[in-house]
């Protein structure tokens, strides 16, 4: 399925155009609303929440297309990494939404339990679709290519282009850090991301209270680790771009 490979599109603006077209349904809802109406018309009998269920089905269709494009463009390994990140974000969000519905009913407003549940399933589908798409979008453009092309350029165009390339490079690097961190923690410090690995928690009636300090610690370790690894190579990147900016043939 080479024709689905976005990175094989040589011209950068054509690649950008294709990626933007692919993202339209996620941002605007079009043509998913039309697909939803079409699916509803196919159902020959009355169904409770037929509209919501049809909406979920149309998202499954769109999600399959996005996954196929991402898989064809980045290969199996990266695709699975993207999916892992998407499911971690999606599942935590959807599960936390359900916890909020139970624990703080006042935050539900006028929404019924059914409506919230369907909204959370929909949210999970949206996240597992859009996260791989967003990662494909960011990584479809090479900062290094932009820098190389700008080496012999002159004046403001060169400086502005280098600022843009540096910005893209740092954002791509930050995205990589998240995956590496997840992989390293999963292998070397599983207790930081999976509470079941905490062997020091004894099975007492108050054991579940350990979850709160654990979650607090996990969030803060994660923030600090992400920051350290994100900022670490920045001096090198800045030096390189500054040298190119001052480079004259």
């Amino acid at each position, binding site marked *: 399925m080479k024709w689905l490979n976005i990175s094989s599109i040589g011209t950068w603006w054509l690649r950008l155009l294709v990626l933007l077209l692919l993202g339209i349904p*996620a*941002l*605007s*809802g079009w043509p998913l609303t039309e697909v939803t109406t079409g699916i509803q018309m196919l159902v020959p009998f009355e169904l409770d929440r037929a509209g919501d269920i049809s909406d979920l089905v149309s998202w499954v269709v769109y999600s399959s297309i996005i996954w196929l494009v991402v898989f064809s463009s980045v290969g199996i390994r990266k695709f699975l990494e993207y999916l892992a990140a998407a499911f*971690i*974000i999606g599942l*935590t*969000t*959807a599960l*936390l*939404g359900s916890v*909020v*519905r139970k624990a703080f009913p*006042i*935050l*539900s*407003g*006028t*929404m019924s339990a059914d*409506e*919230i549940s369907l*909204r*959370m399933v929909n*949210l999970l589908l*949206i*996240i597992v679709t*859009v*996260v791989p798409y*967003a990662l494909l979008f960011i990584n479809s453009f090479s900062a290094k290519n932009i820098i190389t092309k700008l080496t012999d350029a002159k004046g403001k165009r060169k400086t502005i282009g*280098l*600022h843009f390339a*540096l*910005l*893209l*490079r*740092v*954002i791509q690097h*930050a*995205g990589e850090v*998240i995956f590496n961190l997840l992989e390293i923690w999963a292998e070397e410090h599983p207790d930081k991301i999976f509470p079941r690995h905490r062997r020091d928690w004894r099975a007492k009636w108050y054991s579940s209270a350990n979850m709160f300090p654990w979650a607090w610690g996990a*969030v803060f370790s*994660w*923030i600090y680790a*992400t*920051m350290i690894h*994100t*900022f670490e190579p*920045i*001096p090198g*990147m*800045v*030096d390189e*771009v*500054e040298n190119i*900016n001052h480079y004259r043939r």
Partner: protein
Amino acid sequence: MSEPKKWTFATTAIVGALIALAAIATMVIRIPIPATTGYFNIGDVFVVLAGLWLGPLAGAIVGGVGPTIADAIGFPVFIPATMLTKGLEGFIVGLIASRASEGNVKVKTIAAFAGGLTVVVGYFVFEAYIYPAIGKSIPAFAITDIGAAIIEIMPNTIQGIVGALGGLALWKALSGYNPRK
């Protein structure tokens, strides 16, 4: 008053890192608020940090871009509200913080909490008045009303306080960092 900072390649690199971190922090820890279909998150930590560390322009860019990228993933209807509210949050934090000397913790604290207040007021205005008004002509925006906006004041206040405290802590930890060393 501190000297206005010159925009260098190092500034661009830090802004890029903070945009990415703000987007990631907004996405990874988000607690949906069913009443408004919005969500609680900790992305403000990096918006406040950007304003305190790099000034109003960088604060506005990080606030306007980072959390907006996160909203595009799952909550696209909130993009206009987030872009303006968080952009303004970073700008206000940076503006107040730049009026004081580098080490003036008192003014930096006021700046950080002013940013938190901007989030509470900004989202309230959008959810109570602007979205219902736009919703009359574009149905996708008819997702909130004044009742839902009142319900969200509490989580937004907690989010503002967490953002201010986290941003201040990180600013203190990073104030000696120079990417050119």
